[in-house]
Structures are given as structure tokens and as C-alpha cells.
């Protein structure tokens, strides 16, 4: 754990001057999530759409402050699993679930816990960049405060800090009042990351964040993920094997046989999964022989 944090600080791009606010600690939020990364663990998680079981018996620990990649072919329940983790799954009509999702040890589906409060603690970045078109860049970053009713005295500081953490600050600091939709696709995605980071979540879920981006933008987003290591727990769904290898510490391989629910075939450290997998299906998948 400690060497992970030190690794994350050395990973910051050394050529540029270090952003001042990052060193001097976080901008304080009132009513926000508790500080620091939190581990998130699925215990026997299942998910249904109507009568259709799409995910069965997933046990997976995503350690605090580390990056976990979920890989697997399309339709194997990775995204569904991700949406289970921040209670977005239940928003779909007819969706049901079973099992426990433990955030820092306590079940997020416990009776009496507000889904909105859970979602504030567990941010999410979507496949398609979706900045709010009616808001400026600055308003986009601060939108989480308004939406989740969090207060902050140093809004300028929060905007800068969030954009710095999403590696977007240098590109947009002169045009914070321009609309978010005017940015390029990659910048929009990093704006979405900044928006999620502004409420200082404990976990950040990313659902194929780079699949709509070109390689350069993908590289920037991956750098961003690397810098977030130690700061926030990252869970990323990706179809890109190289990306999973580059950014993640842990890996879980999902698979669904025909008309069967998805399940986890193999999980473990990323380097083990890619160099020395136990299951032959994992080997075939990570070497690109199917999927």
C-alpha cells in the first residue's frame, strides 16, 4: 500500500511544474464523502434484467487506492457489475440484484442507506463523454456540488484542483467560462473525470472511458488514471487488453457462455493474469484468440 502511494507520486509528470494546490492538501468540502480511497468488495453479487439472470455469484475485492480492470467480451456483464457498484443498476426498470456490495466494509444496499449518498461516494465516468451542454467548463466541474448538495467555500480552488487531477487544467484554464460541449472528445472525457472528482469520491468507476477516444486522448486519460492511483479507488471496464495491462494493478476476467449468466473466470494481479493465467480461457482471451 505504501509503495503504491509513493509510486503514484513519482508517476506524476516530472517535466512540468507541480500544481501548487495538490501539494498543500485538498480543498475542503462540507457535506461531502469521507476523505481518502475506500475498498469496494462484491460478495456473491447477482443481477437480473426482468427474469433474465445476467450476472451470477461475483466475488471480487477491489482494494482501496488501486486500479482494478474488468475485462471480458461484450455482453458478459462487466458494465452491469460496474453499475451494481454505485446503485445505478436499480435505475433500470425491471432490474433486480442479490448479494452484497461492501464499501469500506459496509453494504451499500443496506436498508436505510440513501442511493444518492452512495453515488456521491462512488463516482462514475461513462463510455460516451457527457458534459452538461448548458453549463460552462467551470459549472460542469462544480455541478456535483449543486446536484449532490455539497458546500464548498473555495470554489475556484476546487475547480483548479479537480481539473489538475484530471490533467485538463493547462488546456482550459483560460476559458473556464466556455461551454463544456465545445471541447474535443478527449477533453470532454477528462472534463467528466474532473466533474466526478470534484465531489472527492472514494471510488471512481469508469465504463470503457476511452472507447470513444483517439489514441492520444486515450493516453491522456490513462495518465490521469495513473495519477489517481492511491488517491481514489479506480474500477475500469475496458475492451482494450493493452490498456488493462498498462493502467491496472488488479484484473478480473468476466465471461458469459451462450444464454448463461456472466461470471468471473479469473481474478488476480494484472501481471499474473497477463503473463501466467491459470485458466485456459483467460489465456486465450488475453492473447486475443477470441472475444
Amino acid at each position, binding site marked *: 500500500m505504501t509503495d503504491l502511494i509513493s509510486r503514484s507520486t513519482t508517476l506524476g509528470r516530472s517535466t512540468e511544474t507541480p500544481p501548487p494546490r495538490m501539494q498543500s492538501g485538498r480543498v475542503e468540502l462540507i457535506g461531502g464523502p469521507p476523505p481518502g480511497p475506500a475498498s469496494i468488495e462484491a460478495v456473491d453479487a447477482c443481477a437480473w434484467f426482468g427474469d433474465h439472470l445476467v450476472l451470477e455469484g461475483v466475488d471480487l475485492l477491489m482494494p482501496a487506492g488501486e486500479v482494478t480492470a474488468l475485462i471480458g467480451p461484450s455482453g458478459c456483464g462487466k458494465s452491469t457489475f460496474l453499475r451494481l457498484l454505485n446503485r445505478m443498476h436499480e435505475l433500470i426498470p425491471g432490474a433486480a440484484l442479490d448479494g452484497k456490495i461492501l464499501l469500506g466494509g459496509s453494504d451499500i444496499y443496506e436498508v436505510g442507506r440513501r442511493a*444518492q449518498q452512495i453515488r456521491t461516494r462512488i463516482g462514475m465516468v461513462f463510455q460516451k463523454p457527457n458534459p452538461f*451542454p448548458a453549463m460552462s467548463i467551470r459549472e460542469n466541474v462544480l455541478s456535483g456540488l449543486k*446536484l449532490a448538495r455539497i458546500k464548498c467555500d473555495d470554489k475556484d480552488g476546487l475547480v483548479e484542483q479537480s481539473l489538475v487531477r484530471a490533467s485538463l487544467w493547462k488546456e482550459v484554464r483560460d476559458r473556464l467560462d466556455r461551454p463544456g460541449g465545445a471541447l474535443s472528445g478527449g477533453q470532454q472525457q477528462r472534463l467528466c473525470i474532473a466533474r466526478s472528482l470534484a465531489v472527492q469520491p472514494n471510488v471512481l468507476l469508469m465504463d470503457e472511458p476511452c472507447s470513444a477516444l483517439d489514441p492520444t486522448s486515450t493516453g491522456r486519460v490513462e495518465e490521469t488514471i495513473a495519477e489517481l492511483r492511491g488517491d481514489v479507488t479506480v474500477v475500469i471496464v475496458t475492451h482494450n487488453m493493452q490498456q488493462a495491462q498498462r493502467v491496472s494493478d488488479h484484473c478480473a476476467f468476466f465471461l458469459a457462455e451462450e444464454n448463461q449468466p456472466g461470471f468471473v473466470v479469473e481474478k488476480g494481479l494484472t501481471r499474473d493474469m497477463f503473463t501466467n493465467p491459470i485458466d485456459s480461457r483467460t489465456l486465450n482471451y488475453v492473447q486475443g484468440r477470441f472475444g
Partner: protein
Amino acid sequence: MTDTYEIVEPVVGTTPVSSQFGNGSVVRSETNGGRNSRRPREFTSADVWSLAGSAISAACLNWLIFARFSSGAGWFGILLCTYVTFVAIFAVVTADRLGRLVAVDRVVTVIVMSAGVIVMVPLVLLVAYILVQGVKALRLTFFVHDQTGITPVLPATAGGGAHALVGTIEQVGLALLWSLPLGLAAAVFLNESRSKWRRPVRIFVDAMSGLPSIVAGLFIFAVLIIPFGTSGGLFGFNGFMASLALALVMLPTITRTVEVVLRLVPDGLREASLAMGASRARTVWSVVFPTARTGMTTAVVLGIARAVGETAPLLFTAFGYDLMNSNPFSGAQESLPLFVYRNIRKPDVNAIARGFSGALVLMLLVLVLFAIARFIGSDHSKRRNARASKNKVPAKNATPLDLTSTMFKGDLQS
């Protein structure tokens, strides 16, 4: 592309005119850096000439047949025969010039275009008629005076319709006040909730939009005015009752238009908002409404434009009154459509002329409202187009980004 136009030099031997004859449907319109650029299927000057020629020949032929050789037919018959002959001649000429395939294409084009012209004719005639009739008696005093002391002997320019204008504005304003919150709430219910009652509500809204507007007036009359009405009271004939009837007319329009606009808001934005810990209500208020703002404004203006021209709901609610009554909650009130209706029916040439002036003012009012709606609507699409074209611009190219972004900035501030 553009600078090749500037250095264009006429090339000896290629005169664009020469291509008018022969050469199939090929057009050589511009000499472009020594090359002839052409657009297949384009209407050329040769086509225009054959159109004109066909029209003239058809007219002459029919004149010859109907006016010289026979005792003539009705004007409509002559017009119809001329049109048929014209299309036939044009078909033959084009087929001879460019072949059968092109001829069929051109003939269908001509028929479709003339259908378009025919559709425009009644509209233009209507507007022109009201314009000509209405302008006669329309003076600036129309916007200042009411009908105080107007007798049949006074000229049409005497008096005015200020009381009707005030009545219209008050009644429609109040109607908007009632129908806007209801319409917005209904649209949000239809689009943002997951209730199983959405279907019946949608059917009711649809049925309501087909409601004859006089029934709306009748409803208010029967339910409020007959049982509770007192002369000069809140439930007597007054602008407030009229606004209720108008609200019934506006409600389905606003609901359906706003619903369509809300449906256009991408689901990704709602998800993003919910994923940040917003409640559903918060999401609608802070994300969906701002995103759909321009479309919603258009919906409201369309609703107003719908209600402004309604006469029937006012007949037994506002009732109509010749003098200024600026209090919508007490006493009968005039409105522009009622003013037109009541004046046109009078056995008095001057009153009829005043009615036409009222109709013209009403039309102008609706025109202004539609212009506002179109302006807001086009503003919206321009913004989207600008964004779409911007995405093609490389991210590092600062200049075009700046240009369009200033445009956005103005839009955001407005």
C-alpha cells in the same frame, strides 16, 4: 477551392453556353481553373427556356382554341387545359432534347413544384386580402383608443382596439400562468417518471389537443359561470374566466411540445447527474431543464400563439365589451379575436373595416410570436450545428474555437 475561383481565366474554346444544347443532362456551369465543373440533374438555362417556351406555346394554343375557334370556356377550364398542354409540351420537348429518362424526371419535378405553388396560393391570397382590407382603417390611434362614443356615422378610422389588445394580453398572460406550470409538470411526468399511468395521461393529453375550442369555453361557462356567476364578480363574464378556457386550449399544446423537447435531452446527461448523487427531481431541475431551455421557450411561445387567435372559448367567458376594462377579474372584457368577430357581424361598413384592422393586428401579433419562436428555435439549432462543426476542428486549432465559443458565451448569458 475558394482561391481557384479567384485565379480563374477564360479558356479559349470552352464557352459554357455551347453546352446548352445536346450533351445530355450534363451542365457546365462554371469554368473552374480550366476545368468545367458540372452537377448532374441540375436545372440548366436550357431547361428554363424550354419551360418558358412550353408555357407560352400552351397559352397561345389554348387561347387559339378557346377564344378564337370556339365560343370559349370558363377561366378555370382554360387554366386547367393550359396547364395540361404545358406539361405535355414540356415533356415532349425535354424528351426530344435529353431523352425519356430525363424527361420523366423533369416533368415530375415541374408537377411537384406547381403543386407547391398551388398550396401557397390560398395562403398568400388570405394574407394579402386581410392586409389590403385591414390597412385601410388602421391608424396609430387603433393602439391607443377604445370604442368610446363610436356611432355608425363616424369614419372607420375613428376609435381603436386598445381595449381588445389589453384584453388579449391579459387573458393570454393569465392563461399562460395557469397552463405553464401544469403543462411542465405533465410533460415531466410523461417523460421523466416511470409511472404506469403515463399511457392514459398521454391519451388524455392527445384527446385534449383535439378538443374543439368552443367546448373549452362551454365547459367554463357551464361549470363556473352558470352556477357561481354574478355580474361583475369573479365568476361572472370576465377575463379570468376567459383565461381558464384558454388555458384548457394551451395545456395540451404546451405539454406535448415540452414533452418532445425533454425527450431530446440525451439519457447520458440524466445518468451522469444521477451518478453524481443527484435526486431525480434535482436532475430534472438542474440538468434536463437547462439543456432543453431553448426548446421549452419555443414550446411556450407556440402555446401562446395558439391561444392568442382563439375566439370560440371567449364567446361565453370574456363575452366582449366595447370599452377599456383593464381588470381581468371583474366585468366583461374584449380581446382581439372577439373584436374582429363582433365588428365583422355589424351591419355597418365602417365597423367591418375596423374588424379587418383588428384581424390584421391579430395576424401581426401571431407573426411576431412565431418569429420569436423561430428565432429561439433556430438559435438552438445553430448552436448545435456550430458544436458539430467544431468537433471536426482539431483541438489545438485555437482560432475557430474562439470564434464559436464567443457565440456560445453570448448564448449562455442570455
